[in-house]
């Protein structure tokens, strides 16, 4: 029997086995293959030009003085060279291994097609996936979870820190966990008598009943999961910055609750209008915390299909303002971290900082719709059928210029 024939037989046998499997199993196959997705939202618009410094661009020095990160020369306390155009802020050094290992990729000029410079409108657009629409709408992560089959979609979403972030809000309920040690505490609902009495009291009011049910479930599960995972993960480490702690909580939850595949974290403090700092200072401290949080996330989520996205509602002005800071801009760097990412390089278009190439002569332009970047990740990393993209990001077009962003399977 030759090899080809043997393979054929084996295929027939497994097809037969499949045919016997109950239909339900086949139907309940998850739409999102394998991995987990974590979105890290930097609220307030971080200065991507300081994170990924266009060091070789002659205009960089003209535009930035107090906030300039010195060009890489191999010494300490200057930018770290990534390639012939970009260098990494030294506070981000902990993520350098990810770049070198080829799992960190960056789209340096991504953003929303809507030109608003309002944080609050822009965040709403990013979270709903509907630029320009300010009306109520579910978050895109919630809509993504709802593409999954019943039985799985109810347990997909998890967020740490915020009370009710828009990106997770919608039909499906998310597990929302407070940041910090209180998350590991069952509280009064651990008492069955109280729990039953409250459930009875809320039974007549649908919204309260549903919130209480979800809250009780989440509280008890979370307390149990974190009690085991966190004590191990803490390992005597001192108090960490908020984002690092939240990252640790999120990975602990996603590791013990295998159904939780879509996670959300956010960090504030990026709106550096004054005294932004350079190699050190306000922004450097923020970036340092972010880098540690990403290392923490990556350590917990290192399956081949896991993916981390780092994004922010818009960028900051290319030029410094009069108070050693930067004002609201447009395009910004969007990061992807994961093994299927074609990492270690920049993706998409980049036109430099020459005055004529800036949006309104002041900001990095938006050269790629953020939804097109996320779409690449969803299709190529998670196997989402392209036909479903319209459900998620109506009006966004597939951007073939980003086709190399993820490795072909």
């Amino acid at each position, binding site marked *: 029997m030759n090899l080809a024939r043997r393979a054929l037989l084996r295929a027939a046998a497994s097809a037969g086995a499949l045919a016997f499997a109950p239909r339900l199993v086949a139907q309940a196959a998850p739409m999102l293959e394998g991995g987990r997705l974590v979105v890290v939202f930097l*609220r*307030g618009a971080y200065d991507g030009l300081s994170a990924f410094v266009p060091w070789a661009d002659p205009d960089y020095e003209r535009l930035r003085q107090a906030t300039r990160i010195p060009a890489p020369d191999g010494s300490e306390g200057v930018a770290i060279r990534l390639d012939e155009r970009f260098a990494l802020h030294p506070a981000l050094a902990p993520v350098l291994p990810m770049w070198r290992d080829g799992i960190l990729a960056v789209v340096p000029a991504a953003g929303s097609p809507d030109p*608003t*410079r*309002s*944080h*609050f*409108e822009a965040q709403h657009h990013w979270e709903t996936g509907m630029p320009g629409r*300010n009306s*109520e709408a579910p978050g895109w992560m919630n809509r993504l979870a709802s593409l999954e089959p019943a039985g799985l979609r109810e347990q997909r979403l998890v967020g740490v820190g*915020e*009370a*009710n972030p828009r990106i997770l*809000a919608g039909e499906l*309920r*998310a*597990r*929302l*966990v*407070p940041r*910090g040690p*209180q998350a590991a505490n069952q*509280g*009064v*609902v651990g008492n069955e*008598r*109280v729990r039953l*009495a*409250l459930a*009875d*009291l*809320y039974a*007549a*009011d649908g*919204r*309260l009943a549903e*919130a*209480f049910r*979800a*809250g*009780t*479930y*989440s*509280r008890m599960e979370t307390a149990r999961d974190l009690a085991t995972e966190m004590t191990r993960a803490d390992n005597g480490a001192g108090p960490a910055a908020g984002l690092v702690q939240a990252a640790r909580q999120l990975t602990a939850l996603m590791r013990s609750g295998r159904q939780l595949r879509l996670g959300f974290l956010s960090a*504030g*403090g990026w*709106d550096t*209008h*004054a005294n932004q700092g350079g190699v050190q200072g306000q922004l450097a401290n923020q970036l340092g915390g972010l880098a540690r949080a990403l290392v923490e996330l990556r350590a917990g989520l290192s399956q081949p299909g896991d993916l981390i996205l780092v994004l922010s509602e818009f960028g900051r002005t290319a030029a410094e*303002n*009069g*108070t050693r*800071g930067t*004002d*609201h801009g447009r395009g910004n760097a969007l990061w992807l971290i994961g093994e299927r990412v074609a990492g270690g390089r920049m993706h998409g278009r980049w036109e430099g900082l020459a005055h004529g190439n800036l949006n*309104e002569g002041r900001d990095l332009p938006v050269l790629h719709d953020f939804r097109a970047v996320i779409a690449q990740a969803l299709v190529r990393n998670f196997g989402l059928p392209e036909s479903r993209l319209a459900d998620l990001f109506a009006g966004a077009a597939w951007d073939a210029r980003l086709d190399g962003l993820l490795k072909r399977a």
Partner: protein
Amino acid sequence: MVQARLPVIRLLGSALLALGASAHAQAPEDAAAWRAASRLGYAPTPALMQAIAAHPRGARGWAADEVERAFAASREAARTPAHLATLQGSIPAAFAELRAEREALRRVRADSDMRPAPQELPTRRSALEAASWRVLACSDPELENPLAARLTEFWFNHFNVFAGKGSVRPFLGHYVLHAIRPNVLGRFEDLVLATARHPAMLFYLDQAQSVAEGVTGPFGGARGLNENYARELMELHTLGAEGGYAQGDVRELARILTGWTSDPSAESGFRFAPRLHDRGEKTLLGRRFGAEGEREGREAIALLAGHSATARRVALRLSQWFVADAPPAALVGRLAAEFQASGGELRAVMRKLVAAEEFWDERQQLFKTPYDYACSVLAATGRPEPERLLQALRFLAGAGQPVHGWQTPDGYKTDARTWLAPEALTRRADFALAFSRDSAPPDHYRRFLSPRTRERITQEPAALQGMLVLASPEFMHK
């Protein structure tokens, strides 16, 4: 026969409608008292209940009078308990505190063991006192008029500043008591001006540092414009994001406001510095501004404060705050018209609001925010001990609504969509248990509970009943 039955059916129909409107069947006068005390204040204390019951026109009459009482209170100095001493401090004293703290931190920087715990820093202590006053004021009608406390919360949130920013922290108490509170029922323009000139806002949105392009700074370096305050002044404080201005207007307004900066030795903390002001010509919303120094900024603020987009925005936000997350458009329209007709008199707008049918309509429901909830529990269980006060502040921090702790200038959201989250009710139950443990179950609240709730609670041991009243569905709404 058929005709005779119709009224019965109609009656039945309206009874069903009433049930649908409010899951919590209460006597109408109790429902109105609950609404008046919980929305115009935070909770019906026994004294408030008595005052409402004694008013010849009931809750509506009490509400109309409450606007006038709150106005009178707002024009007098705030009462501050003796143990919150920093609230009596002046602005120069706050600047001195900030300087001394920075100096001390510089000295110990080299030696990390010497570094004081964050809560021991003087500016943190004064920020804690400011937050403590807010929570005492919302829960103790003898310390503060309830509607004045409510409106101080509303307008602080509208002109939000953040306690996490070091330069803002020592000024918080002064900002609450002297910029916000005296103006909550005054002219809107005065309120905008008071916030614009206060060091808390000047530092929070970087206005203090924004100067004409090319002006040299104190250390010789070239400085320039910062758009932060100008943008939020239009987007959040006045016109709203849809208010019809463009990026160019943001820049022009920033130029107009150059020179508006802080002064550590002035009682007001404010100074206009002509040297830092941009003397060129500017155009804001189509209107030209010449080289008129500080007057340009005042006129720009008058222009923005009196704009029809501002009237609509203020009317909408007040209606969302006092009536419903999605308030009836007719109400918003009437309040906006009153705002414009009265030249931005907030007292006139509030009179209209408490007289509106929509305010009293039981279909207009509001779910309590964590702040509403904490204040109402404190009010229901009596004046808090210091430890209880700290517990309330911790609860608010954990629930996502720390006092003066919202980082961005848009302030907290107030709708159920934000706050009726899975964690909300379990946290409130913990809080209710802590607060009902050593204070008597608030018996006077039972009349506000539906028969169903009342009956279910009586099945539980007495030790749990107080907690269940505070965690009941009725108590979650205002």
